[in-house]
């Protein structure tokens, strides 16, 4: 029953929050978007206050009354301090890293302020994740001190786009008595690649013989040029002919063949379902990226260019991640 109520309440709260704080690309916190309530420490503080008042009453001691009143006033004053510490802070997602399922995906959140207030003790977290403090604002007055980037991590679960959930930003600064917080929903999404599953040997050797006999071509003698020998170059690169002619010590330089493409094709894996094929293609991309040859990807309805390098690899992985993906 209580579980049901909790769930119902949770849903109602989410709905309410959705209306109050919808997804935005950047938010500057203000009195409409933050919540303020005594923290657990604050409640303890009120308990101490009550005991102090009791002490003062029983001993009819006005000095103790003075300090009970002072602490009560401190409590009230810190409400404003805590509020001001969070209000006026702007939040924006700078970027969300890409990753594989099971990875922690890094989310860079930019925290900035437009005013000159000294701020401290602001913590950010996603859901139940571990909170991260904002550290840069040490009030030294430099122009970049008003802007900080905090890295948080999301759990990558399944292939596709990953959206940052509600980001909890909270502070109990300066005395820990009042908790001021907000749950903001920020624009920005990252990419989760398919889970790479290495194809079995038979599969990987597959293919029509358009798959190049790379071993034969590997040692290509595609002579390019000569250059003065530098210490450390292997002896078999020394241009003996030129040396014998008395022209001096040169080394020979070769280039790898340009036209030696490796195509990773959707149709390489017949009989598997979409996710399984994507997983295998993903593993192939990772493998091809280490082979040192240009490679490309053929998916139904799209075909990538051939290419090499980190950027190319990321692009292929990304198209695998987003292939026929829909938000669920």
């Amino acid at each position, binding site marked *: 029953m209580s579980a049901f109520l909790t769930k119902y309440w949770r849903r109602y709260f989410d709905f309410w929050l959705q209306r109050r704080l919808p997804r935005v690309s950047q938010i500057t916190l203000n009195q409409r978007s933050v919540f303020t309530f005594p923290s657990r420490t604050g409640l303890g503080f009120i308990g*101490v206050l009550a005991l102090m008042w009791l002490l003062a009453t029983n001993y009819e001691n006005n000095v103790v009354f003075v300090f009970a009143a002072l*602490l009560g*006033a401190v409590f009230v*004053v810190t409400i404003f301090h805590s509020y001001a510490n969070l209000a006026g802070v702007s939040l924006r997602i700078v970027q969300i890293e890409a990753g594989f399922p099971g990875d922690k995906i890094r989310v860079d959140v930019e925290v900035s302020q437009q*005013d*000159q207030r000294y701020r401290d003790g602001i*913590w950010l977290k996603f859901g139940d994740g571990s909170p991260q403090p904002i550290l840069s604002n040490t009030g030294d007055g430099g122009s970049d001190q008003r802007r900080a980037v905090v890295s948080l991590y999301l759990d990558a679960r399944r292939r596709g786009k990953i959206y940052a959930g509600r980001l909890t930003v909270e502070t109990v600064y300066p005395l820990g008595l009042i908790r001021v917080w907000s749950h903001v929903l920020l624009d920005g999404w990252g990419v989760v690649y398919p889970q790479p599953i290495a194809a079995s040997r038979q599969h990987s050797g597959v293919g029509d013989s358009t798959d190049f006999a790379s071993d034969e071509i590997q040692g290509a003698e595609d002579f390019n040029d000569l250059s003065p020998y530098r210490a450390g170059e292997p002896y078999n690169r020394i241009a003996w002919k030129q040396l014998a002619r008395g022209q001096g010590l040169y080394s020979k330089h070769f280039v790898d063949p340009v036209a030696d493409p490796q195509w990773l094709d959707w149709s390489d894996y017949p009989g598997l379902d979409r996710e399984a094929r994507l997983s295998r293609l993903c593993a192939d991309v990772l493998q091809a990226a280490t082979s040192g040859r240009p490679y490309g990807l053929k998916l139904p309805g799209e075909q990538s260019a051939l290419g090499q390098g980190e950027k190319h690899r990321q692009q292929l992985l990304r198209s695998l991640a987003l292939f026929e993906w829909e938000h669920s």
Partner: protein
Amino acid sequence: MLPPWQIPRNGTLWLLVAFSVTVLPLSRHLPLWVPAIALVALAWRMGIYRGRWGAPQRWLKVALIFACIAGLLISFKRLYGLEPMVAMLVCAFSLKLLEMHQRRDALVVVFLGYFVAVTLALFDQSLAAALYVATAVTFVTASLAALHQTSLDRRHYRPLLQSLRILGQALPLMVVFFLVMPRLGPLWSVPSPGLAMTGMSDSLELGDITRLGRSSQIAFRVDFEGEVPSREKLYWRGLTLSRFDGRRWTQADWGHSGGLVQWQGQNSVWHEQAVLLQGNPVAYRVTLEKHGGNWLYSLWLPQIHSANTGLLRDLTLVSPEAVTRRLEYQVTSRPASLLDAEGLAAVRKRVELQLPGNSNPQTLALARQWAAESPSPEALIARVLAYYRRDFYYTLSPNSLGQHAIDDFLFRSKQGFCEHFAASFVFFMRAAGIPARIVAGYQGGEIHPDGGYLSVRQYDAHAWAEVWLDGRGWVQVDPTAAVAPERIASSLLDLMSGEEIFGDAPFDLARFRSVAWLNSLRLGLESLEYRWAKWVLGYQNIQPALLAKWLGGLESWRIGGFLLLASILSLLPVIRASFYSSKLEKTHPADRYYQLFCRRLGKAGCPRKKGEPPWRYAQRCGQILPTKKQDIEKITQSYVTLRYSRGGGNLAELRALVKGFRANRINKF
């Protein structure tokens, strides 16, 4: 970075400071082992902080806990009371300081710190003590702030500044809260601190008053309605001591309940018979500090006006219960009145003549001899006083006396304090057949120049005698005045050198009365203390009247409305500061130097027009100041590069150029 449950190093540091400041003054009021345990905890935590020691082993912590429990049980018969409570709190404070691993432990320490800091006010309500508590609370708040900072700010003192700022902002609201906070009166009876009481006791043994003479604490303050009587008339009677057992003088047991107390509003038969009121009345109001006894002080032959005060048969004042907090009462005295002039009942005469058997035989013999030789009691009294005057002298540090103390004093040492003179005189009178008793109280006091009130301090404590003479009733005789008339005409302080009196309080300001500015400082502080006592310490007495006067009534809506309105008003600066903060400066750093440059040019006769582009301005100034044309162009070039080309320019260069730029006003021929 620290996870949120860890204790920041700075937090530990400030906690250690707060701990020391908080516990230090309490050690005076607690058995010695309590500060000792606090010191162990402090030293150990310091060791942990500096990385020298590890956390204490389990057995050590258990041993400390048992030491605390055993100490509490041994030091205090019962654990119910103020001292045991504070001792227990300090123990818990110390042990928790040792047992501090996570931030929530540190928070418990902070809360204990607040509580322990405030308990000092239960022992001492003076303004100085309150200021000390305020300091302690500031440090505790600083440690609370330090526990919640995350920035790696190198400035260790930052939490203290923050604490001061927050407490400062809280002060106006504190006043509001203090004014309206309900004063319900004790919810259950609490034992009062016994240790803090200083003052006269209800019995007297030679040497007691000498001890009081070394303290400058206030005993009571008096506001006179009219003129303050002259000093030598200010004999503040506290109690009369009629019973003597050979060592101690105590009050005769007339019984407070046996109809011999006339409470305010009553009219007893004995009062009408025994008292003949005459002479000019002197009206005054006494603010008595707590002293633990139930007697009150008044001048000769008082009439009472305050509820809960009563007159004893010897015409001293009492309160129905012990004075454990500051008490105010109103009295009118008539100094010329007579008491028991019509005669003294036999039973009372017997009491006032009582002497212990076989004590002080020498005095006894001499008294009988002189009584036989004297024509009248007055002549005898005069002879005894003359004897004192001839041979005796007055001192604060009399020799110790033997078993027959009065014999020793009268015939051998011949030096003593007021109590020696009073006791020996009363003994002598009784031996000679004249009813006599000792009066314990205070003599004199210090008239405050501004306040129009008199403060009577512990060193004004005095003992004198009253003898009963046929037809005149009780007559006051002060044998000390015979020996040291200046003791009565001026205060003890003026009489004695400072060092001799304040053996235990070397920095007492009263010691430096001869230094004029120190003396005026002392009087100023005293006046402050008086206001503090009147407005703060006694606030519950004036609260209803004050609030009714301000608000026009005491209905809850008035008080609630006042609370709300006054709170908002007192918080206005804080609210303002929390909603508005000055915007980040958008000006480029180069602008500052350029503006300085423009000001200098302006002074030289070429002010910049509003919104004038730098190059046009430079051109114009170049024509006005042809000698500076090159410099002006250079600076403008540097500024424009800095300001308008991306990442270009050199700020230091511009700065140097501007600083070095001097343009003199052009001379007009």
